[in-house]
């Protein structure tokens, strides 16, 4: 890698080699479960993904999908011909009237590409020419849990491996000090709960699970030594533990104890490498400032974006951020303003920062939620206030880097912003495309479980080649 990571160490010994399997210390006995023969796949365009997941369903009407007709027809009933019997949630399903609601925020076109972005996202708008907007995303689920589970695991029903786990399984780790799949959640937010299944390994071996990094004293669970055990004492104790293991390893047939030794050695290295990577004090001011004032406050979305870049530098394969709070059934104008203040500048800064370091070429950044929102109002519609219900039929997501076309706005919704009229991209298509970008044929990355070969895209999904350079 061109950029520097403080923790990078070359391979020097067999033990190091075992360690370099990252979290994959399966050892001989587990080889059959863990080893993934790299399937022949497309040429990789990126080596890692930073996924900025916006949980709750950001409203495309206030952010990216400009709909003058809805603005004009503000307060008028959604024509039945547009809805076509689409099922509604139990929250608006018994509402007597479905009045169209205009965006409270103005839109303008930006950059040479002329992408429409609202005034809520000035920083993102300023890098519009770096971004690839997909305005024609659609999904199947209409409630949060099934929708976010579907987005991140390919199935609405809990139990499948998450996207990052599939990548860890398919591509392994690029570093020997950190997990291949790291999860960062904005602190102190409320909204839909985030559950570990969203970064869980499902039926894949658990070494592929995402590891949550938390702001605060114990950034990875149980990373810190107990009170009264200094690093020096721990090192000596682990050396003796290793000697005990090596005694056993000398007995015939117990070679797999090497994996146990490597497991404890990597745990020890993580005790240094994780605090190192999370300590932002060595970042120059101009970089921190680019991410905005929140970046100095650990656990905020801004600080997590900066941390994501550092993890990417260290070769972490999949870095998943979660930012909650986009579920604006009511009080949308006020709510979304706060959300954008928290995410706009850091999201744009991340893309810019990666680009400045030459990392945008092999890093894919994705920004988006689990579904969109309705063009009609939920609850009382006033000039100043309104809400929007869940809408699975269309929503917008953007990507940057990693061989996707910059300055592209792909797909189109109808004038009501209700249905897609051109180039739909299903969630499974997006998943297939993301895997493709990392050099994986989504139909070939499979794991046999309960008699069936499973994959991230279930039995669906087509690579959306039009998004790729």
């Amino acid at each position, binding site marked *: 890698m061109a950029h520097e990571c403080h923790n990078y160490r070359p391979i020097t010994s067999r033990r190091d080699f075992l360690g370099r399997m990252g979290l994959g210390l399966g*050892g001989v006995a587990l080889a059959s479960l863990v080893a993934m023969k790299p399937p022949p796949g497309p040429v990789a365009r990126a080596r890692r993904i930073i996924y900025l997941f916006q949980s709750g369903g950001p409203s495309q009407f206030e952010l990216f999908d400009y709909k003058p007709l809805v603005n004009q027809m503000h307060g008028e009933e959604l024509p039945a011909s547009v809805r076509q019997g689409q099922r509604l949630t*139990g929250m608006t399903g018994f509402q007597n009237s479905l009045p169209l609601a205009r965006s409270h925020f103005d839109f303008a076109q930006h950059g040479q590409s002329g992408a429409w972005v609202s005034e809520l996202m000035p920083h993102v708008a300023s890098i519009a020419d770096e971004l690839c907007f997909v305005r024609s995303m659609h999904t199947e689920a209409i409630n949060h849990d099934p929708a976010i589970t579907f987005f991140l695991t390919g199935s609405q029903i809990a139990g499948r491996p998450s996207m990052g786990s599939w990548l860890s399984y398919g591509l392994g780790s690029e570093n020997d000090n950190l997990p291949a799949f790291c999860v960062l959640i904005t602190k102190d937010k409320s909204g839909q*709960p985030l559950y570990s299944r969203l970064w869980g390994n499902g039926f894949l071996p658990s*070494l592929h699970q995402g590891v949550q990094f938390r702001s605060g004293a114990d950034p990875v669970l*149980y990373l810190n030594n107990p009170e009264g055990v200094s690093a020096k004492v721990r090192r000596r*104790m682990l050396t003796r533990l290793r000697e005990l293991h090596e005694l056993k390893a000398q007995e015939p047939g117990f070679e797999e104890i090497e994996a146990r030794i490597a*497991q404890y050695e990597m745990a020890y290295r993580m005790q240094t490498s994780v605090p190192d990577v999370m300590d932002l004090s060595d970042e120059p001011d101009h970089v921190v400032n680019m991410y905005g004032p929140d970046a100095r406050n650990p656990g905020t979305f801004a600080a997590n974006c900066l941390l994501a870049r550092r993890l990417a530098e260290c070769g972490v394969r999949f870095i998943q951020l979660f930012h909650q709070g986009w579920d604006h059934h009511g009080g949308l104008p006020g709510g979304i303003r706060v959300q954008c203040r928290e995410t706009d500048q850091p999201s744009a800064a991340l893309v810019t920062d990666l680009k400045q370091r030459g990392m945008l070429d092999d890093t894919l950044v994705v920004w988006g939620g689990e579904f969109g929102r309705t063009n009609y109002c939920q609850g009382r519609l006033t000039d100043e206030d309104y809400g929007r219900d869940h809408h699975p039929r269309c929503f917008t997501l953007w990507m940057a880097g990693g061989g996707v076309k910059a300055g592209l706005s792909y797909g189109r919704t109808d004038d009501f912003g209700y249905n897609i009229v051109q180039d739909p991209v299903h969630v499974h298509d997006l998943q297939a495309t993301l895997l493709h970008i990392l050099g994986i044929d989504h139909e070939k990355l499979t794991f046999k479980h309960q*008699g069936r070969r499973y994959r991230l895209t279930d039995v669906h999904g087509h690579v959306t080649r039009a998004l790729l350079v």
Partner: protein
Amino acid sequence: MRYHILAAFYIGLIAGCARGPDVEFNTDIRPILNERCVGCHGGIQRQGDLNLLFRSEATAMAESGKPAIVPGQPGQSELIRRVAHSDPEYRMPQDDAPLASEEVRALRQWIREGAAWEQHWAYVAPERPSVPAVSWPGWPQRDLDFFILARLDAEGLEPSPPAPCPTLVRRVTLDLTGLPPEPEATHAVCNGPLRYEQYVDQLLDSPRYGERWAAMWLDLARYADSKGYEKDIGRTIWRYRDWVVQAFNKDKPFDQFTVEQLAGDLLPNPSEDQLIATAFNRNTMTNTEGGTDDEEFRTAAVVDRVNTTWEVWQGTSFSCVQCHGHPYDPFRHHEYYEFFAFFNNTADRDFDDEYPTLPQFDEADVAEGAALLEELEALERAILRLAEEDAIAKARQLWETQLNRPEVIGQVRNMLQNEVRRVSLVPEAQRDAAQRTLIASVYARISPDSQLIALRERQGDIRRTMGELNPLQTPIMQELPAHQRRRTYVFERGSFLARGEEVTAGTPRALPPLPEDAPRNRLGMAQWLVSDANPLTARVTVNRFWEQLFGTGIVESLEDFGTQGYAPSHLELLDHLAVSLREDCAWSIKCLLRSIVTSSTYQQSSSVTPELKAADPYNRLLARGPRFRLSAEQIRDQALHVSGLLSPAMYGPPVMPPQPDGLWNNPYDGRRWTTSEGDDRYRRALYTYWRRTIPYPSMVTFDSPTREYCVSRRLRTNTPLQALVGLNDPVFVEAAQALARRMASRGEDAPSRLAAGYVLALAHMPNNKARQTLMSLYEEAEAHYREHPADAAALTGAAESAELAALTLAAQAILNLDSFLMKE
């Protein structure tokens, strides 16, 4: 009926095959069909209207107007013509490499010999195999040993010598109770008066036995203390967990164990215990997210019940058939929904209140509670009677005409809306009794009639009073009354929104039919599962217990005995154990386990020579004893046990041992993780609060599932996060502190104390080198803590004692030894 005749026909063919033709369907033909053909001509896709899973369809006219297979006539069979075609345009498989010429030859010969479809072995009922002859008749102690040794003979391998006694005692104690042995017990067996068989009986009688095996069963039952999905609110269902512990401890025969869990409510005069048993299927998730369609998630729960039943008892990936015919195995799409119909008529419907539940009143309130329940039932009857009377019936008729208005139909709870609309379109005179009751009962809930209002208010009062008694409510299964019975339809592509043809309850044709006189309900279905005719249940069950003891099942894929699962390593052994469980043991699991752990196979040493390792790297042939990592539960329980902290308390509400702050961040839920006080901090892992979306960290780190759905097999992995748990999780730090105190009390000097700790943990003495290494660790640590007394106090949690601090660190090393984490 037609299918039954065919099924009999297949079985007849198997018998007919005993003459031993050169080509056998299962070994020579099915692999070709599965690998090369059924992807396009099978259960999912039937291109050219051809399905090669069933003989009846493969020999029928296909789209081409020709049958693919004409038995006895390879020359007339389109299949042969197409696979042997020289023109790639016509040759099958399309756009793929042609079949090898031996494969074509085998297909030809097979068709010439009649194209007999053999049943896959797992769908033919097991028969007791004769015990094979072996090279070393003195080795076997149990019948099962003959099967193992015969195979080793065939492979030119020899069994390993017996394991050292302390190692064996630790192995069998962990296996049967989930805990390591007390040093005194090890001594009694290895040096003293207690015979191994007697010790095994003691372990089987220990209350710890039920806890250990419940831990396995609860993965299958997807037991958790929360409802799952987004909000993952708490659920009170621990009485079911306790039922499982008791059932194992009482050695409830596995057939009863099965029937009570699947259909205890349908038994005559079911006992409270039998009702609690049915909570097995109330462990499905409930979605309490706002705005969800309750019918969608009720259906999801029924689907889960079907899939779980097939995984647990039949080792079959039936979930495939939810969306389409099975890709490889002989199960048809509509058969999924026939089975679904067994489960589709219970009263639960994804409601937040978990209705129906079984109340348990405090002892003082039992009489009052029973009276209240009785009055509620009487009121319900009175309300129904009243609702069918004229005046109210008139108002209802008017109401029915307005059902197309959202605010009117909105008053009906979700799942009944469609049914109410449908019934309202049936002219009143043509409604049957069930339909009349349905609509009357729904209307009775919302009618403004003053008498009804009074009765409803009285109902409300009673419910309030009952609420004040605050009984423990455990969700159970309850069959719907006749007027509320649901229809079952095939769901096209598995979607509950796409209803196909209506079906009635039944079992798949590939398996023996339900007996004619069996009830067509869950009870009949459960009894069918454990009937002698069922070829799968006993096999799947013995295989599950075998896997727990040996680390790998005789069929490695515990969850898939179908044609795509792994072939059994010892089919005759599997059948021997299956028949023996049913006939010799009368379904007693203790009897099964006793026969296994007293076998020579089980008692072998797990040490392995390089040659044996090369010959059998995964120990499938069992020329050595098992060696594999303990389960998440065992790792916690063992650490607490050897340190003397483990609480022996059994049963009751789940407990909350220490976990890091801030994990429970669910904004919908005011519940907090409140660390349990006193002994409840140190209960067995089985009693830890299990929240599905935020499982207890050390459990998932050591590969436990989340219990969102049924899991047969935990994959064992090895990650640095596990090392961090063993070293730094406060639970394990406390265990080290306590073990250090125990060590201090068991020896006069450091070497004897270190040895005592080692023996407590591993049941055997350390060798000299291990002793020296532990001593070096101890001395270095002691020197350090002499200089840092505050650190010593922090580490021991009490005294500024360098000795105790050093012992604590040594205890940590012992608790993190590979040998400690493994069963050897």
